[in-house]
């Protein structure tokens, strides 16, 4: 199945949920709307000729340039991408899904952007989503146990955001 | 010894002095034995693991390594967790040490060299060794740590279970000897090595291995060292201990190892009797000359200690080779294998002694070259009964003194 056929099939199935497709990239990727993510993922996992049964990785990428001058030349609008790397152990194929999110929900700083959790589809997602939540500040709705995983429970902020500033002090430990 | 001292001291003081000397000598045996065996453990484990072990303190072989460590431990702070039950926490190591220390009282180091000649010595030693678990349990409870508590519970369950097969195993040589007196049991196995109870019949041979397994378990050595399983329970019951108290636990562990090995040596390996009746060839053992007798006992002592050390070394070898069992497997080993096999061996030995009262290989002690040497049943019994006749526990202690004296300066 070539890339185009595959994309056509998905588009037929899910229509608007698939917004952008980039087949020329190094790792060809498909952009999905957060609303359609769950259904698409379930389809990708369960369809016998696709069987993307392993979720390799969930990564959050913060497209943001804190420096105002450089931001103009950055070439992207500030947003957060959640990238899902899937692979099929059966068919030895890989797939990349991307979900584009605003940096803050409704542009209200402090309101974490939301994306549905896929931990009901792949158990791997449980910890990976916790990590992304912890470090990137993405809220995965319907996650069974969305707590910080690498940072302490009472940590403030999300360290991998580009505008994150290390706290001056944490329980009496100097931060900077 | 008390009689000897009476020539110079008032009677009351003489007995007291004799008792103190014995106590101190046994303490020296325990302490020095621990020092030597910890050093040995390091050397043995080092050799097993392709290492050298200690090489610097005290010369080429690191003789004094344990001593140096002991000094370090003494200088360490004696920590006590805030959540501990302080009185029990402080006392627990001594309870353990006392238990294994007391066992030495009834342990003969050579023919007649015993601190207190008990006619139920075997039973006494087994009973007293079972007390060591008490210190461990107190330590585990009193530490106020969950890991310690786990260690204590494991220890309790394990030791109580293993006392059953251990008891059955110990009974087999007792049955053959017809006495619980360790001195008499040792005397019965004099002569060639096939007089040893190990070779008395096939059942004793089996029973010895069960005994050794159970003994290893009851003194908490790998693969049965569940109470201090470092990969599971951090350090088990002594997690919270440091410094001197911790080292006292070690002393207790090593001295119990020696006791069970020594008990095995007496019960199965002829005690102080060598594989060959050399002392009889030389005419030392039966000589009326006390000096000759002394020399014979000295040889016997070396023999006995050699066997005990071999037993301990074997335990070390096992420890550094095998993985640890799981608690349910330890229990299964005890209840499903050790106990039935021990019971089978016991029954077999009973039948055997009934069928071949004089033993199979030995048309009894006639094999011994010396004609004069005839240590027959009546003699052994009379020896037992005269020893039983001793009124004061201290009166008979003098012979044991020499054993310790020698070991102390060895």
């Amino acid at each position, binding site marked *: 199945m070539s890339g185009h056929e595959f994309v056509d099939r998905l588009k037929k199935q899910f229509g608007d949920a698939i917004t952008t497709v980039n087949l020329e990239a190094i790792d060809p990727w498909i952009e999905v709307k957060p609303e359609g993510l769950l259904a698409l993922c379930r389809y990708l996992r369960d369809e016998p000729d696709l069987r993307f049964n392993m979720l390799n990785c969930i990564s959050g990428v913060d497209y943001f340039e804190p420096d105002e001058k450089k931001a103009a030349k950055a070439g992207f609008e500030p947003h957060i991408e959640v990238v899902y790397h899937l692979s099929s152990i059966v068919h030895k194929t890989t797939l990349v899904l991307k979900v584009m999110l605003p940096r803050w929900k409704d542009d209200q700083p402090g309101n974490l952007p939301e994306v549905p959790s896929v931990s009901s589809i792949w158990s791997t997602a449980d910890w990976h989503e916790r990590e992304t939540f912890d470090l990137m500040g993405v809220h995965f709705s319907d996650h069974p146990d969305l707590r910080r995983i690498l940072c302490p429970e009472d940590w403030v902020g999300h360290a991998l955001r580009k505008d994150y500033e290390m706290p001056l002090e944490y329980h009496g430990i100097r931060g900077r | 010894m008390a009689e000897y001292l009476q020539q110079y001291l008032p009677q009351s003081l003489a007995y007291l002095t004799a008792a103190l000397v014995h106590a101190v000598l046994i303490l020296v045996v325990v302490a020095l034995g621990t020092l030597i065996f910890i050093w040995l453990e390091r050397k043995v484990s080092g050799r097993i693991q392709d290492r050298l072990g200690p090489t610097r303190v005290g010369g080429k072989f690191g003789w004094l390594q344990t001593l140096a460590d002991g000094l370090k431990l003494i200088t360490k702070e004696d920590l006590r967790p805030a959540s501990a039950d302080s009185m029990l926490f402080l006392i627990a190591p001594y309870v353990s040490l006392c238990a294994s220390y007391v066992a030495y009282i009834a342990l003969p180091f050579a023919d007649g060299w015993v601190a207190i000649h008990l006619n139920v010595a075997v039973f006494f030693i087994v009973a007293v060794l*079972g007390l060591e678990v008490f210190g461990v*349990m107190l330590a585990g409870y009193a530490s106020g740590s969950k890991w310690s508590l786990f260690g204590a519970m494991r220890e309790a369950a394990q030791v109580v279970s293993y006392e059953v097969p251990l008891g059955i195993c110990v009974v087999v040589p007792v049955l053959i000897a017809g006495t619980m007196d360790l001195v008499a049991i040792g005397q019965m196995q004099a002569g060639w090595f096939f007089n040893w109870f190990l070779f008395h019949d096939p059942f004793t041979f089996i029973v010895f291995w069960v005994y050794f397994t159970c003994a290893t378990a009851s003194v908490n050595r790998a693969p049965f060292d569940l109470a201090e399983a470092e990969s599971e329970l951090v350090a088990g019951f002594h997690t919270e201990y440091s410094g001197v108290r911790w080292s006292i636990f070690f002393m207790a562990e090593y001295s119990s190892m020696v006791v069970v090995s020594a008990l095995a040596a007496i019960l199965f390996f002829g005690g102080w009797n060598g594989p060959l009746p050399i002392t009889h060839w030389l005419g030392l053992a039966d000589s009326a000359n006390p000096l000759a007798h002394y020399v014979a006992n000295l040889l016997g002592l070396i023999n006995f200690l050699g066997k005990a050390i071999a037993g301990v070394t074997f335990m070390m070898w096992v420890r550094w080779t095998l993985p640890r069992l799981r608690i349910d497997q330890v229990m299964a080993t005890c209840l499903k294998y050790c106990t039935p096999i021990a019971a089978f061996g016991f029954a077999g030995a009973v039948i055997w002694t009934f069928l071949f009262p004089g033993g199979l290989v030995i048309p009894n002690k006639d094999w011994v070259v010396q004609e004069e040497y005839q240590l027959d049943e009546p003699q052994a019994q009379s020896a037992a009964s005269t020893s039983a006749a001793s009124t004061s526990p201290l009166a008979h202690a003098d012979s044991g003194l020499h054993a310790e004296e020698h070991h102390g300066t060895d």
Partner: protein
Amino acid sequence: MEPINWHSVFFLLFALVGCGFSVAVLLTSNVVRMAFYLVLALAATSGLFFLAGADFVGAMQIMIYVGGTLVLLIFGVMLTARGPFISMRTPAGEWILGAIIGGSLLVVLLSAATSVRAWRPVAVAEGEARPTATRLGMALLGARVDKLEEPDPTQREGMSGYLLPFEIVSVHLLVVLVGSAYLARPKKRAVGSTAETV
């Protein structure tokens, strides 16, 4: 100088230790400490046995009471009750009740003890074999070796020893073991029919 009778000294020492720790058992409220004091009291008692020349009974005391019963007791305590349950407060009523029972027991024992005529040390002649545990063991198995000197053979017949009590005790212990195993059996959950569950 008057020679000190060490036997008496040690008897007093062990007796004091035994009594002292028995009282301590009563006074402490911590179950594990109680057990510890009990161990010391029982060990002192076994010391008294040793002092009396009854080595076997002494060792038996250590093995069964200290090594067996108390270890199991502490084991049970640690396994089941922790934290607040480990301390035991005795209500005043129980104190009084206990004092009455204990006091009457003490009176009975004291009167029994003082009524014994031969309340004096037994002199053992030098060289005479002292009674050992062998006789006791034989008697438990039904042979009264100590009575074999009985001149009248008809009298000897009746001396069957203590085999029956011994057996009764054994069966009793077996019953206890089976009973405890029964109590500790897996609790069956009622799945379909409730008839099975007791």
